[in-house]
Each structure stands twice: as structure tokens, then as C-alpha cells.
């Protein structure tokens, strides 16, 4: 079984997690830029964070045989702080990088005018840079937030097939399914979505345009819940091919629209002067 976790914040996770994920079959991840618990107060904090997402973190993942890509954006919560808004001007330099496969996470947190504006601006950046977009739906007032998100996506003129709307549930799936956007589900220990509920959704709707992620971060979360969901699918009678479609081929198809998804080994990154140097520190 091969797993592609299309949304996980590895910056907040330990090397033990990488090790356990690799052992359980996770071969590739996408790490969206988001907030870090502690609000940031200057663009410099963001550049160091973004640099890590295209520098140190892919190297760290590579030590465990996991391919790491990123999505880059100013998240909606921090978009509300005027001190962080200049981050928008820094984004073009990141959106041309090889490891960046989408603009994200964008979307709504509290549905403020500042969030309206940054969402629209960043969807336009996705169009300009020929990148897909990863759009988060708000934790509070989710259904209304999803409706408003889809309206902004339509106005932006981005192809629905290049947009992934994430953190969905039984209440919001129909809206997104009808829009033509991809549907993301974040499997969490207590909140958002659980493996048994995810299986029921897949039984009802089928695997088309559905992505499953752990969205593991610095909160209570579990990077192996993608694997648990795959196991629950098999127990419920889904074929190995169905599981592979949801857990690998769907995320590959979505992010490959960037033209930058690189899932084969890059020889020059794994060796230097002909010798393996991915052994890491001691």
C-alpha cells in the first residue's frame, strides 16, 4: 500500500513521525503553508518558514525516503494582521519554485473583508503562475464559509478542476461536489472527520475527486490516520485498487496539474560526488 498525504504540516512533527509514516507506507506528502499556533508579526518570519518548506523540510523527509512538496500562501488568520500583509508581495518569488505545487492554504477563517481580499488576490496568483489552489474551509460557520468560498472561486476564473476544497464533512460535501472542485477530508482523532465516517462517505459518493489527508500539525492530530482510513476502507470491502486511487492516484492527479510534481528520485539531491550523503547527523 502506498500513501500520498496531500495535506500535512511536517514542520510540527518529529523524526519519529517520519519514521513511522515511512514504515506504514507513506511515500509522499504535501505540506501547505499555514499558521504555527503562535501568530507571526513580520514578513521575515514568513520567509524563514517558506524557505524551510522548500529547503530543510524536503531534506528531512528525504532521509526517510518520503517525497516532500509544499504549497505557499498567506493564511487567512494572519492575513488579518496588517503587519503580515506584505507577505503577499513576497509570494511570486516562491510560486516559481520547483517544490511548490499549489497556492495554499488560502480560504476563510473569520470571513473578514481582509480575508475576502487576500483570497481573491491569491486565487489570481494561482491563475498567473499556472498552479492549482488548496482552499481551507473555516472551522466555525463551515457551511456558510464553504458557500462563500465557492462563490469567490467562481469569480476568480480559476478552473474548478484545479481547486481543492479541504476539511469537508457530510454537511459540506454536496456543495463542493456540485461545483466540480476536488474534495479534501482531514481525518482527525476527535474532530473534523473519522475513518469510519470517511468510509461511509466513500461508500455513498465513490472515490472520484476525493482526497484524504491527516492534516497533522501542532494540535491533537495523528499522521497515521491516512493509513487507518485505508485499512478501514479495505475492511469495509473496498478493493486495493480503490484504496490506491483515493490514497495515491487522486492526490497525484490533482497536484500533477502544477507540472512540478516530482515523485522519482532526483540523483543530484541524493548523492554528491558520487556518494550517498543522506545519512543525516549523528
Amino acid at each position, binding site marked *: 500500500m502506498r500513501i500520498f498525504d496531500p495535506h500535512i504540516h511536517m514542520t510540527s512533527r518529529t523524526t519519529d513521525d517520519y519514521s513511522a509514516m515511512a514504515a506504514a507506507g507513506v511515500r509522499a506528502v504535501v505540506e501547505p503553508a499555514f499558521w504555527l499556533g503562535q501568530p507571526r508579526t513580520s514578513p521575515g518570519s514568513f520567509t524563514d518558514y517558506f524557505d524551510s518548506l522548500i529547503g530543510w523540510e524536503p*531534506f528531512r523527509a528525504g532521509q526517510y525516503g518520503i517525497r516532500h512538496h509544499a504549497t505557499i500562501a498567506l493564511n487567512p488568520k494572519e492575513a488579518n494582521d496588517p503587519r503580515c500583509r506584505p507577505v503577499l508581495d513576497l509570494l511570486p518569488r516562491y510560486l516559481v*519554485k520547483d517544490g511548490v505545487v499549489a497556492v495554499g492554504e488560502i480560504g476563510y477563517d473569520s470571513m473578514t473583508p481582509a480575508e475576502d481580499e487576500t483570497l481573491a488576490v491569491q486565487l489570481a496568483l494561482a491563475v498567473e503562475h499556472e498552479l492549482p489552489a488548496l482552499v481551507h474551509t473555516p472551522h466555525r460557520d463551515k457551511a456558510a464559509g464553504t458557500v462563500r468560498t465557492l462563490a469567490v472561486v467562481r469569480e476568480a476564473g480559476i478552473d474548478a478542476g484545479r481547486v481543492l476544497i479541504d476539511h469537508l464533512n457530510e454537511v459540506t460535501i454536496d456543495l463542493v461536489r456540485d461545483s466540480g472542485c476536488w474534495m479534501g477530508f482531514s481525518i482527525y482523532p476527535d474532530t473534523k472527520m473519522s475513518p469510519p465516517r470517511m468510509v461511509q462517505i466513500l461508500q455513498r459518493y465513490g472515490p472520484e475527486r476525493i482526497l484524504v489527508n491527516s492534516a497533522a500539525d501542532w494540535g491533537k492530530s495523528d499522521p497515521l490516520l491516512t493509513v487507518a482510513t485505508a485499512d478501514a476502507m479495505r475492511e469495509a470491502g473496498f478493493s486495493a485498487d480503490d484504496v490506491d486511487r483515493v490514497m495515491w492516484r487522486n492526490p497525484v492527479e490533482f497536484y500533477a496539474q502544477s507540472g512540478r510534481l516530482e515523485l522519482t528520485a532526483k540523483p543530484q539531491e541524493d548523492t554528491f*560526488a558520487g556518494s550517498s550523503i543522506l545519512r*543525516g547527523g549523528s
Partner: protein
Amino acid sequence: MTLDDLRTALKAVPGRDWLDDAESRVRADPGQVSRLFAQADRRMGRERLAGAGDWTAGQAARAVLLATLDDAGTVARLYHEGDAAERLAVLRALPLLSIGDAAVPLLHDALRTNDTRLVAAALGPYAARLDAATWRQGVIKCVFLGVPLNVVADLDRRTDRELTAMLSALAAERAAAGRPMPADAADLLERTKEQP
């Protein structure tokens, strides 16, 4: 490896038209170099470049773009704004440029990272411009990180009594912990410890 070697080898790469065009654009408008430098790997490819040792086509193309401007400020900016592969390409290109000592701070930056590719690349031929104390720390860091010492340019000639003493101390710590020294570090110690 010289820039002419890289240019010759790049002639056989399917993306060479892209590179020719990119060079002209950079000459006409140096402000375009950031975007083109970022694209070079996916346009030119990540495979080894035939006739260019262990250089990849993307790295060689990036070296050519850097040489087109050959400007220390641009080199530093592309390094600092680059992803890991771009930084690696900048470090490899440094000995091929005419920027004197101006890029030595980039070696210090790379040696501060824990990315073995960058640490290794920082100890190539351009490290001849690095002060002895920093260079010794770089070599010892390679031993710690498991980076093979054949990446270090001019290793035997530059190894001095201080480095030999540091290697001896590390060997003693490893022996106390029951852990082996990497074979190449043990060999270096053996070769150099008797020197006056």
C-alpha cells in the same frame, strides 16, 4: 570543470534552446534572472550531464546563468532566495565566477545548515578562500554528518596540526562510546598524524 566544459556539454541537452533564450533575456534585463534561475532545473532536467562529471544539466544551466551576469550581489541574492537545489547550484558555480572573495559569506551560511548537500558543496574548490578555523570546523562537521571526505577540495594539503588534533579528539570520543570513526576520517588521521 570550466564554464566552457559545461557550455559544450549543454549543447546536447534538449532544453538548450530554452537556455539560449534565457541567457539573452538575462543580458537584456537582469531583473529576469530570479524567475529563470528558479525554472532551470525543470526546463533542463535533473539528470547527470554527459561529459560534465557529476554536474546535472540544471546545475550547469544555473552556472551559465550566473556567469552571464557574474555579479556578486546577484549571486548572493539568488542563493538567499533559492530553494535547496538553487543554493547547491550557486555553491557549485562559485569557483567558475569572477567575483573574488565576495561569496565567502555564502559558504559560512551553507556550513551553518544541517543539509549535507550544502555542507559538502561549501567545501569544494572555492573553499580555498575560507579561513582555516572555519574550514577545519567544516571538515569535522562532515565527519559528524557522515559526509564522505572526498567532497573536500585539497584535503590532504590543507590538513594541519589543529585539524589532526581535532580528529584525534573525536576518535577518542568515538572509541569511548564504542562507535567507529568513518573509515575515510580514520585514514586521514592515519596519514597526517605523524606529520610535524
